[in-house]
C-alpha cells in the first residue's frame, strides 16, 4: 500500500474533528474524500500535509511514518504534492518558475528541471503560457499550473483540496475529465477532497464518505450510489425516494448483496436487493432513485403505482415531477415529455434497482 492511515483522530480542545479513521490507498489509486462541511475532510488533508498534528493514530507513506502523536515530519520532507483550493500560486513567479520551484528545492540538475517543466506544460496543455504570471491566467489555467507544480517531483502522494471550487460550473465539468486524465497519465496516487458527489464519482476509483469526523462508508462510486450503507450516504450521493419497508423473504445470491422481497406499507410487495446479514422481519427503508421510476399511463399493472402529479418543473433535458402515490409517499421522478399538474399517472419501478436499508 502506498498510503496507510491507521485509526487517525484529531481533537481541537473539546471538538473532535476526526475520529478513528483508517484507510489504505494503493499505488496509482485515486481516492475521493467526500463529506459535508465540518465532516473532517480538510482536517484529514492537513494531517497528511503536515499542517496539523494527529491526536491519535498514525500516517504512513510507502512504509515511512509521517505523523503520529509526538512525531510530525516537516512538510518539505514528506514527498507530498498538493493542489490548494484557490491554487496558492505565487504572484511574483511565472508559470515556468512556479513549476520549477519544487525541482529547484530538490536540487534536480538544471537540464532535467527544464525537461520536466516542458513535459508537464505539455501534459496540462499550457505549452505556450510558460512566461505568464498568475494574474495573466484564467481560473482553469491557474488550476493546471497548480496541478503541474504538485506533480513536478513525482511525489508519492498528491493531495487535492477541493480544486474545482474556485471554477465556474461549466469549467468545472471540463476540468473534471481533464484532471482524471492528468492524474492517471502520471500514475499519481491521489487523495481528492471534495463536497461535490459528481466530482468524486467522475474522478475517483474509490470514494470515502465522512460525517462528523467519522468514516461512514468507503467503496467504489457505484457501490456508494447503488448500495449505500445508510440513509445519509444515500441522500448525499444523490436524490432519493424513500418507502417504509420490511423484509419478507431473502434469497441467497452471488455477490455483495442478497435479493429478496420487501413489503411497502404492509401491502405492496417489491423485489429488492438486501444487504448481507439482513433476514426476514427486518424493518427499514426502501430506496428508489428518481431515474428508476418511470412514468406510464395510469392503469393498474404489476410493479406500478397510481399517482397524481403535484408539481412539474422543466429542466431542459427532462421534466422533474413531484407525484403523490395513492396511499403512499410523495416521490420525485424524471420524464422526457411534459406532464401537467393534477394529471393521474402510473409510476413503474425497476425491481432490481430497489435497495433496502435496515434502520
Amino acid at each position, binding site marked *: 500500500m502506498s498510503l496507510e492511515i491507521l485509526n487517525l483522530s484529531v481533537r481541537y480542545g473539546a471538538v473532535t474533528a476526526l475520529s478513528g479513521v483508517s484507510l489504505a490507498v494503493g499505488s496509482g489509486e485515486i481516492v475521493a474524500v467526500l463529506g459535508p462541511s465540518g465532516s473532517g475532510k480538510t482536517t484529514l488533508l492537513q494531517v497528511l500535509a503536515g499542517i496539523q498534528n494527529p491526536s491519535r493514530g498514525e500516517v504512513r507513506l510507502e512504509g515511512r511514518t509521517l505523523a503520529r502523536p509526538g512525531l510530525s515530519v516537516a512538510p*518539505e520532507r514528506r514527498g507530498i504534492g498538493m493542489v*490548494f483550493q484557490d491554487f496558492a500560486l505565487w*504572484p511574483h513567479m511565472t508559470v515556468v518558475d512556479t513549476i520549477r*520551484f519544487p525541482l529547484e*528545492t530538490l536540487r534536480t540538475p538544471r537540464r532535467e528541471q527544464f525537461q520536466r517543466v516542458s513535459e508537464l506544460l505539455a501534459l496540462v496543455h499550457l505549452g505556450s503560457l510558460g512566461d505568464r*504570471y498568475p494574474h495573466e491566467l484564467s481560473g482553469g489555467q491557474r488550476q493546471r499550473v497548480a496541478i503541474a507544480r504538485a506533480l513536478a517531483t513525482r511525489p508519492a502522494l498528491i493531495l487535492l483540496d477541493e480544486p474545482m471550487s474556485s471554477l465556474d460550473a461549466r469549467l468545472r465539468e471540463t476540468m473534471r475529465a481533464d484532471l482524471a486524465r492528468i492524474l492517471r497519465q502520471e500514475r499519481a496516487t491521489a487523495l481528492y477532497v471534495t463536497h461535490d458527489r459528481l466530482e468524486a464519482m467522475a474522478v475517483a476509483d474509490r470514494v470515502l464518505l465522512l460525517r462528523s469526523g467519522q468514516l461512514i462508508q468507503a467503496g467504489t462510486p457505484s457501490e456508494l450510489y447503488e448500495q449505500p450503507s445508510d440513509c445519509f450516504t444515500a441522500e448525499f450521493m444523490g436524490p432519493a425516494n424513500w*418507502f417504509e419497508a420490511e423484509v419478507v423473504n431473502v434469497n441467497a445470491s452471488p455477490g455483495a448483496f442478497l435479493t429478496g422481497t420487501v413489503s411497502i406499507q404492509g401491502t405492496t410487495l417489491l423485489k429488492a436487493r438486501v444487504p448481507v446479514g439482513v433476514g426476514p422481519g427486518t424493518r427499514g427503508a426502501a430506496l428508489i432513485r428518481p431515474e428508476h421510476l418511470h412514468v406510464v399511463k395510469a392503469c393498474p399493472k404489476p410493479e406500478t403505482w397510481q399517482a397524481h402529479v403535484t408539481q412539474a418543473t422543466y429542466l431542459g433535458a427532462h421534466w422533474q415531477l*413531484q407525484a403523490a402515490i395513492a396511499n403512499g409517499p410523495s416521490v420525485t421522478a424524471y420524464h422526457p415529455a411534459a406532464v401537467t399538474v393534477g394529471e393521474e399517472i402510473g409510476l413503474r419501478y425497476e425491481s432490481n434497482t430497489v435497495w433496502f436499508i435496515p434502520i
Partner: protein
Amino acid sequence: MGFRTLNGMAAAVVVILIALPLLALLLQSIWPDLFSLPPSLRISGAGFNALFQDPYGIRSIVDSAGLAVSTAVIATVLGGAVAYLLEAVELPARGFFTAMTWLVLLAPSFLIGQGWQFLFGPGGIWAKGPLVGILLSPVGVALVLSLKLFPFSTLAISGALRGIGQDVVHAARLSGASLWTTWRRILVPLLLPAALAGALIVLAEVLSDFGVASTLAQTANFPLLTYAIYAAMETFPVNFSEAAALAVILVVLVSLAQWVERWIMGRRGYATRWGGSQNLGRQPLARPWIWLAAISALFVVAFVLPAWGIVAVSFESPGGSFGHWTLANYLSLWGRTYGLDTFVRSLGYAVAAGGLGLVVGIVVSIAWWRRGGWLIAALKALTTTTIAIPGIVLGAGYIFFWNQPILGRIGLALYGTPAALLLAYVAGTLPYSVRVASGSMVQIPPNAIFAARTAGAGLTRVIVRIFIPMLRDTWFRVWLISFAGVIFELPVSELLYPAGAPTLAVGIIHQIHSMRFGTGAALTVISTVLMGVMVGAAQFLQNRCSRRDEHKHSRTHWAGNRMANDPPSAPRLSAPRKEGKFSL
C-alpha cells in the same frame, strides 16, 4: 433639489476650494504679474530664475530630496521590523504596540520636533549632552522624522502580511522549501512592493512636512523645501514668484512619489489576495522578552521621550533650571496673546471646519456616487490627487488666489480674514472626508435607494431619511477626525491666520521662537489634554447613541447582499434541491 443641482454644487465647491487656488499658484509661477493691477500676460521665468540663483532655495531642494530618501530607507527598516513583530510572531501586548503605532502616526510632527528640541536643543533639558551635535544635524532630523514616519511603512507592510494567505507558505513548504527558503523566495518578494510603497509614502510625507522643517530642522540650520516656501512668502523681501516656483517643484516631487506608489500597489498581481482565506499564522518567539524590550525602546524613543520632554519643560520654572517644578507656565497662558486664546480660536475653527467639511464631503460624495458625466469624473480626479498637496502649498495657493486686487474691488479679497483660513482648512480635509464618505456610500445597497425613490422620495428626502440615518456613525467619525486635524494644523495656519488672531499651532511655534519654551510646552500639554477629553467625550456619546439604535434595528444587510459598487452578478441557474425524501 434634484441631482443636477447637486452635481453643480459639488463642482462649484471643488473648483472654489481646490482648483482655483492651485491654478492661481501655477499661473503665478509662469505669469508673475497676472494678478497685478493692471494684469500682465507677460510670461516670465523670474520665479524659477530667482530660485536657481538663490543658494538657500537650491539648498532646500537638495536637502529635502536627500532627507526624504534617507528617511524613507530608515523608516522602512524600522517599519518593516515592527510590522514583522506585530503580524508574523506571537509578541506579548501586541494590541498595545499597535495602538502606539497609531499614536505615533497621528501625533503632529511639529510637536514631536518640539519635544526633541526641548530635550536636546539650545536651552533644552540635556542641551549640553553628547547627543546634541547629532540631533541638531541632518542626521538627527532624518532620525527624528524616521521615528515619526515609520508607522506608514509598518501599516503598508502589515497590510501586505495580512494579505498573504497561509496556503502560499504551505505550497512552498510542500514543494520542499525550508522556512528560510520560503521567506527568501516567497514572502520577501511578496512584501517588497508594499515595502516600496510604504517608503514612497514616507518620502512624500518628508517632502511635505512643515512641522519638523519649522522646528528642529530650522534650529539645526538645515533648510528644507516647505520652510523655504514659507520663508519666501513671509520674510522680507517677499518673493511670491520664487515661492510659487518652489511650490510647483514640491508638488511635482510629491505627486511623482504618490503616483509611483499607486502604480506599484495598483498592479493586479499584488493587489489581489493570494493563498487562501486564512492569514499567515503567528510563529512563537524564542526569546520574547528581547523583542519586547526592543520594540518598547523604539516607542520610548519615538514617542514617550519627546512627549516627556514637552511635559517636563511645561513644569519648568521660566528662566530657571530644570528640576524646579512650577505651574507658572500654565498660569501664564491666561489673558496673554499666543496663550489659551489660540486654543479657543482653533477650537472654533475646528468645529466649523469639521462641520462645513462634512457637508461639502457629503455633497461631493453623493455626486460621485451618482457617477455623473465628465465633470464629476474630473472633480473626482482632482479631489483624489489633492490628497498629495502639502498644506504649505495649499496655503500659498490661497494667498495667491484670495489676495488678488481684482477680488478686492468686488469685496471678495478673503486673504487675511477668518473665512480664507476656514476655507483652506475645509479644502485640506476635503480629499480625506470625500474618500471616507464615498467609502461609506458603498455600504448602502442600491435597492435601498431605489426603493425609496419608487416610493416617491426626492433627493432631499432620500438624503434625510436614508443616507443620514444609515451613515450617521461614519460621518460622525469624518467630522471628528477633521476636527482633531484642524486643532493642531500648522502650515496653512502659519500662512493664513488673520493678523492678531493666531491659531493654536501658530501660538505654540511663536512661544518657542520667542524662547518661551515653558509657555509653549504648557500650551501644548493643556491643549492636548483638553482635545483628548473632548474627542473622548464625543466618541462616548456617539457609542451610546449607536448602542441605543442597535436595539431598534439591525444595521447590516438592509436590502440584499449586493453592494452599490458590486458588478451585477449572473442569475442563479439552479436552485438547491431536496428531492423525494418521505418518511411514512
